[in-house]
């Protein structure tokens, strides 16, 4: 690395073509950078784990410009070009780092033959399980066998027999016969999850993956091993045998478990979610996510979902319910309990509503213990959104005692609650009975039950929108499945409330229209920003002094408040 922290580029030659890559890039990544779908096939290499070099699938040919041993001068060929000294044996791409002038062959006879050989070796003892294997359709072995397999077997001996169904932990099952011993899961457990419970027993061809006796793979990251297992050896107890992956639609989403905002992919079919997996974002979650975050979709179909717009418990058309809400809000003495679970767009609307009826806005914190990795102390996905949109100006308190006093004193007569059960936050049901209550939320609770007006809202899987994570990174998510029938996206319902409050006619808003307003009105968002314009990797915002608020999060995978403060101090010092 050079002094200003940038990595210098070097020129290497891949299959006759000169390419510039950062010095030290391994050849698997370097070839990927060439683009055009070029790939060095590999199993054990994983960009976020240490290099094991055991699968030998990534063998390539490598040469360096020749120099005379005595004089150090370049050795030239007949055309005056520097000769390339090719290594006598193929080398592994994953452990070969780009150096100036390096030459690489990724498709020579030797290379292709090496891959074919590794493929044959991996298959001789591999069960022919594809038809009943959950990995089929996303199996590297299956894919590379199509490219590098013989189509027939030279192996007429008996295959090895190993355990077929080992429970490694509550969420992970192992089929040792399918395991290609790439050690990705072992390295993940050691290096990322810091829970060194997996390892190999026995030797040679009998090597068997297993859990240390008396331990189990039970940490909150265990399902990442299933994701990175290149074959169907590790499967998720939850997902196993439920669905063929090629039937599933993949939708980009954001995990709402905490302010980390892990990037995810929702796998769904015909309106039903089957699993959630992490999506790589090196600025947020690398390639990982928690097990608990993957389970969040389980409440989509639960019995306590709110599925009807109601007034006084009676199902009414949405326009009528919205109008009733407007009437209540116009009555004055309104307070709002907003939510850090709402999307940026929704928060923007709540802020508008709050302004239009001079409402005091409270927001409740939901804190838990952080794990230092991808579960932060703040268990809401969008507290930064509430700050950026101006819905709130300071960090939330843990309960609503001040609001309770206002209700008690009669200063608040109408209450709009978003996704919180205020009865557990210091407002007893008797107190709640003193106010007119509007409830907006996804699931019912004691507060919803007391509400005069109920506006069901969509879960993150059912709508488009965006959140702002702990690092003030604006990240968008998309609807993977439809919501309960008849339920509109929240911002459309909120438009029906916000517009009349300013004596305007509600517009048939789209997300793009909402974003036009957000971009024009929100200080920390560029005026040209659109929702569509938020990249798949998110967009870092410049939140100014908001960053200096005393947030609860402590250091985790990509969040380091102390380091940030140091850089700020250093910058200030160098300027001063």
């Amino acid at each position, binding site marked *: 690395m050079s002094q200003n922290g940038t990595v210098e580029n070097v020129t290497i030659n891949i299959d006759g073509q000169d390419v510039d890559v950062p010095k030290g890039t391994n050849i698997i990544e370097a070839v990927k950078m060439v683009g055009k779908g070029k790939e060095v096939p590999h199993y054990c290499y994983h960009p976020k784990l240490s290099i094991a070099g055991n*699968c030998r699938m990534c063998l390539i040919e490598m040469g360096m410009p020749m120099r005379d041993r005595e004089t150090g001068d370049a050795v030239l060929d007949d055309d005056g070009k520097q000769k390339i000294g090719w290594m006598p044996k193929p080398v592994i791409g994953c452990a070969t780092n780009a150096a100036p002038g390096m030459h690489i062959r990724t498709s020579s006879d030797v290379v292709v033959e090496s891959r074919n050989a590794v493929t044959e070796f991996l298959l*001789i003892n591999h069960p022919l399980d594809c038809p009943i294997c959950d990995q089929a359709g996303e199996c590297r072995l299956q894919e590379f066998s199509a490219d590098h397999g013989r189509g027939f077997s030279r192996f007429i001996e008996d295959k090895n027999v190993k355990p077929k169904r080992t429970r490694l932990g509550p969420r992970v099952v192992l089929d040792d016969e399918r395991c290609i011993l790439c050690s990705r899961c072992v390295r993940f457990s050691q290096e990322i999850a810091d829970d060194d419970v997996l390892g190999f027993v026995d030797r*040679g061809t009998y090597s068997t993956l297993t859990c240390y006796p008396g331990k189990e793979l039970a940490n909150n990251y265990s399902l990442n091993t299933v994701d990175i297992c290149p074959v169907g050896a590790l499967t998720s107890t939850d997902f196993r045998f439920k669905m063929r992956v090629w039937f599933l639609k993949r939708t980009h989403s954001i995990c709402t478990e905490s302010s980390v905002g892990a990037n995810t992919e929702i796998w769904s079919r015909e309106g039903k979610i089957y699993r959630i997996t992490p999506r790589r974002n090196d600025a947020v979650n690398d390639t990982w996510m928690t097990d608990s975050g993957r389970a969040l979709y389980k409440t989509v179909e639960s019995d306590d979902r709110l599925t009807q717009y109601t007034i006084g418990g009676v199902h009414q058309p949405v326009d009528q319910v919205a109008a009733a809400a407007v009437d209540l809000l116009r009555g004055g003495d309104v307070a709002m309990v907003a939510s850090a679970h709402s999307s940026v767009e929704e928060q923007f609307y709540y802020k508008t509503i709050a302004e239009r009826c001079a409402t005091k806005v409270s927001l409740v914190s939901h804190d838990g213990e952080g794990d230092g990795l991808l579960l932060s102390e703040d268990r809401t996905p969008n507290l930064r959104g509430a700050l950026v949109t101006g819905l709130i100006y300071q960090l939330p308190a843990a309960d609503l005692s001040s609001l309770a006093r206002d209700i008690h004193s009669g200063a608040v007569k109408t209450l709009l609650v978003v996704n919180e059960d205020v009865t557990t936050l210091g407002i007893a049901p008797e107190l709640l009975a003193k106010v007119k209550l509007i409830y907006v939320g996804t699931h019912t609770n004691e507060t919803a039950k007391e509400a005069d007006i109920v506006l069901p809202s969509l879960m993150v899987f059912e709508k488009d929108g965006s959140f702002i994570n702990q690092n003030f990174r604006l990240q968008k998510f998309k609807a993977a499945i439809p919501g309960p029938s008849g339920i509109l996206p929240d911002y459309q319902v909120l438009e029906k409330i916000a517009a009349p409050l300013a004596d305007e006619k509600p517009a048939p808003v789209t997300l793009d229209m909402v974003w036009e307003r957000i971009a024009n009105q929100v200080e920390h968002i560029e005026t040209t920003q659109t929702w569509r314009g938020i990249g798949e990797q998110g967009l870092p915002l410049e939140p100014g002094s908001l960053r200096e608020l005393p947030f609860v999060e402590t250091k985790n995978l990509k969040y380091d408040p102390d380091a940030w403060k140091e850089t700020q101090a250093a910058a200030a010092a160098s300027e001063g």
Partner: protein
Amino acid sequence: MAIQEQRLIFKHLDEPGYSNDIDCYLRHGGYEQLKQAVTMKPEDICAEVMDSGVRGRGGAGFPAGMKWKFLDRKSGKPIYLVCNADESEPGTFKDRQIIHKDPHQLIEGMMCSAYAIQAKLAFIYIRGEFFQGYRILERAIEEAREKNLLGENILGSGYSCDIIVHRGAGAYICGEETGLIESLEGFRANPRIKPPYFPAALGLYQCPTIVNNVETLCDVKHIIEMGGKEFAKIGTPGNSGTRIWCVSGHVQKPGYYEFPCAAITLGQLIYDVCGGLKPGRKLKAVIPGGSSSKILRADERFTGKLKNGTDFDWGIEDIPMDFDSLMAVGSMSGSGGVIVMDDSTDMVEALANINYFYAHESCGQCTPCREGVPWMRKITQRMIEGNAREEDADLLNSIADQIAGRTICAFGEAASWPVQSFIAKFKDEFVEKAREQAARRKAGELAAKETTLI
């Protein structure tokens, strides 16, 4: 007439009355070289070792002086010396003799070497089965410590270094230097990838480490005694010093015999030194450097050019016993394990035996070795069990070709070379095996012959 051995390393060890305690060693002039070494500049000892040209006795034959030169001294990390006493290459039984009968020679050689490379700590990694050897070493180290020949401030020189003896748990792969290092650190002996983990830079505990064979380290003592240049005069240029040949198999007098490099031919070793073959038997083949080295066929003609440019044209008996000559005939001197086979040997069975060993010993880390070697074993096992096929020879060869040169460690070659060379030289026997069995099956007989194998 038997040719007289010229012993250097084994000089005293079989002398009547020679015992492995320190007093006996001191009576025979022991530790004089260590006393001398600690008065020398470490880099001067390294220079002597370089001048001596001594090559590693563990298998690869890499010049020790060169290896020491590669040591990363700039990192500021402690340097370690490791003695490889795993001795598990089939056909090799020399290190054990040194450990059992002359442990102080090894300790002296190690302390001289440790001082030369300025090691902070030295280890002897001893094969798990050598329990007796382990006890002998432990005692010898205690004796040496009492006399301040190791430990703190050795002989008042200001240099301190101790030796720790570490027992393996019975795996061939622990002899591979990076597997050994992993094992020494307390892990499975999974060899490391090179690059980046060259021991001289990132060895034991990621510190610069020198791994040398027992015999190589003993040589260092003699290099100090006679000086590098004088040592280099033993043998021939590039093949200096003596080698201990461990002869096993179908000879009258199997055993270990020490000669200067190139002082004898393979023929002299078998017929003059080892008393020839069993009566009425003819030489069929020789594996000259431990089971990993490529087999030589008795009726082959070996022709080519030596490193120094001279042409050679040898029969098997003419091959000089040294590093370069055995390399020139397409094999290697390896660990010095000379396995002699007469015409009673069934080559398929012999290979089945070797394959069994390698399949059992693969660490299982990398795909070609883990899957390919046991496959070769399954084939040769099937062949001797009566189900040989004519195409098996080519299949075996093709599998070996798919392993060699593509693995994490040299075990891949060690396991492939026997197969490649057996098929290259005795393919007819492998094909014949299938035909014979087919004929017996046709005649209603049992296809497999009785075998004494595993």
